[in-house]
């Protein structure tokens, strides 16, 4: 990315659960923020600006949550900005935070993204329809299922690929203390035995509904030098969007995603993502989005993504591990999910990913998408200052 170097100098996450009844919304976001500050060796007073990410307000019924949470995040008297780009919002929030530093305007920025899905019903909020038009999708799964079927028909992928991804990511989640779904000894057969929700998506091929928050502290060179832990350097950031319906749109392989990837790779000097990226945290809320995004992100040729998954290349011990944290399939506080991908990518190159650390990870991709596969946000982080 252009401008001054940007580093991730602190990461904090909450445990992701179906319900975090033990905390208020403010308590939830503070939990992540205070952990990120502790990781960075800072407190609220050291922060120059705060960026808050959050999916639609109807999810919790809190309008303008940034204003509501300003003092809980130590933002009194400081610049505070709210970001909302649907499911990709966590990623976009990280990118807005990074541009705050790259611009030279700020030295230390706190970035927080959250969702408390238990406060209402995301499917209700996502399916609210304009009364004068047709809306016949039942939540996100109902919306994405036709695209997934189209991918399967187009690529000739065998039905076992989705369950393989679902089992792989859930096995990875067992190594991640923050993950929501913890299913010991999960297998593809177990996934295939769960009820069909929206063909071809089965119950265990869909992400859970989670409460949770994620925070990162971003800093410039000075802040990175003073930080107690290893920084992750931001090597590139990109965002793209496209309309939900236009003539020639390919909802299976959206152009906005391809363009976004090409942009971020060019900034980070990535010529071949499969070779040059050591580990990727990619937004896969339904199992089949792994092979679909393997192609969209250029890790595989069109129609070949499922072969990469089937070969085991994306497993935690494969040559291009995807979602070692367990991914969105294992924890989905929607507004935070994209920032979690970005933060997990940073933890990998900081060598701070714990039991799901990929040995020697030096370059990592964080990816998020949202709405009708319309909004994309990506960053590449590395262990070396650019």
């Amino acid at each position, binding site marked *: 990315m252009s401008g001054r170097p940007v580093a991730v100098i602190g990461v904090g996450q909450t445990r992701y659960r179906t319900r975090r*009844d*033990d905390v208020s919304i403010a308590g939830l976001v503070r939990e992540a923020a205070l952990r990120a500050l502790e990781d960075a060796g800072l407190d609220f007073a050291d922060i120059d600006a705060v960026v808050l990410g959050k999916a639609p307000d109807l999810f919790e*019924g809190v309008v303008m949550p940034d204003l509501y949470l300003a003092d809980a995040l130590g933002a009194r008297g400081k610049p505070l900005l709210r970001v909302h780009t649907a499911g990709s919002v966590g990623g976009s929030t990280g990118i807005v935070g990074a541009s705050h530093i790259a611009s030279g305007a700020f030295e230390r920025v706190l970035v927080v993204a959250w969702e408390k899905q238990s406060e209402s019903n995301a499917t209700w909020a996502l399916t609210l329809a*304009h*009364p*004068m*038009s*047709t*809306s*016949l*999708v*039942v*939540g996100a*799964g*109902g919306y994405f*299922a*036709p*695209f997934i*079927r*189209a991918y399967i*028909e187009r690529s000739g992928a065998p039905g076992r690929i989705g369950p393989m991804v679902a089992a792989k990511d859930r096995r990875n989640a067992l190594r991640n203390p923050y993950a929501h779904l913890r299913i010991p000894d999960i297998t593809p057969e177990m996934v295939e035995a769960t*009820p*069909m*929700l*929206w*063909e071809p998506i089965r119950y265990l091929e869909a992400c859970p509904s989670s409460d949770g928050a994620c925070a990162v502290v971003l800093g410039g060179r000075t802040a990175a030098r003073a930080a107690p832990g290893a920084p992750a350097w931001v090597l590139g950031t990109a965002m793209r969007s496209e*309309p939900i*319906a*236009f*003539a*020639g*749109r390919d*909802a299976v392989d959206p152009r906005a995603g391809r363009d976004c990837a090409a942009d971020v790779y060019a900034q980070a000097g990535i010529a071949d993502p499969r070779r040059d990226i050591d580990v990727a945290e990619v937004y896969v809320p339904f199992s089949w989005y792994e092979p679909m995004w393997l192609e969209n992100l250029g890790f595989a040729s069109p129609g070949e993504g499922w072969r990469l998954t089937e070969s085991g290349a994306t497993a935690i011990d494969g040559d291009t591990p995807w979602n070692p944290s367990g991914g969105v399939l294992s924890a989905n506080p929607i507004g935070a999910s994209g920032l979690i991908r970005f933060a997990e990518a940073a933890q990998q190159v900081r060598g701070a990913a714990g039991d799901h650390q990929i040995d020697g990870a030096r370059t990592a991709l964080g990816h998020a998408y949202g709405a009708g596969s319309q909004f994309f946000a990506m960053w590449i982080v590395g262990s070396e200052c650019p």
Partner: protein
Amino acid sequence: MSPDRQTGSPDETLSGGHTVEFPGGYTRSTGPVIGRFLTELRDGRIVGVRARSGRVLVPPTEYDPHDGSPVTGEFVEVGPAGTVTTWTWVAQPRPAHPFTRPFAWALILLDGADTPLVHALDLGPDSGPAPPRRLRTGLRVRPRLRDERVGDITDIACFRPEVDRITAPTRLDYTIRAGPALTRYLDAQLEGRILGMRSRHGTVYVPLRDVDPTDGSPGTEEVELPDTGVLTMFSVNHVPDPRAPEVPFVTGYVRLDGADVDLLALIGRVEPSRVRTGMRVRAEWLPPEERSRTRPSIRWFVPAEKGEDDR
């Protein structure tokens, strides 16, 4: 025995109501330990007594039930909050019970106590015959004390769950305007016509809209489209939805003949297992008297008639 009624049948045993009550009620001397507990309770405090082992007994007794040793003279204020250690649900309360609605008897370990107190637990006015899901071991509770206390265990009316969630009703009332293009589209549907827009790129959008979404340029002409097309993508939904007839139901994208974008639609009159990508479909219109300017007039799309090439 004072039978109030006699039945005519010789086979039935004679029965009737009967009450025994000592006039004015028996009295109990409380002794120094239980008396202290009840006196403190009348003042709004709950105390236990420390046993020689160091354990705090609540309600207090004059001896440690564990080994029979006398307790110390030390009274310790406990609670008022506590934790449910076990419970039983009373689905049909009896007249002597503290509630007429279902409630729980619970063993409650008050904070600072080492022995649990048995008391009534009220889960609220919506309590039904089945125990509420939130009732579980580990539930945090607090007592509701009566305003007029007399020094009796019923000075605690009941325990109630701690407040850990409130509801925040939210409602926004809107006036929705369809805008000129959607209004014309819905009006045309009243006559069984489907309107689209040709963009300056030559592509045809449906429903009718004002501008091309790729560049915002205005449309060049209105076009009428047939009500037949091809199913480009679909899903079989097993999750119920009030807008669909039954599960499983099919939703899909229909590319009307001559259009360049798909319509999202319900697919009907076909076994879900027989639906396939590329299937030719046609609109099934609502009867004219059921059509409305405020919602789509196509009930769903159905497989095109027999004989038509559906490949």
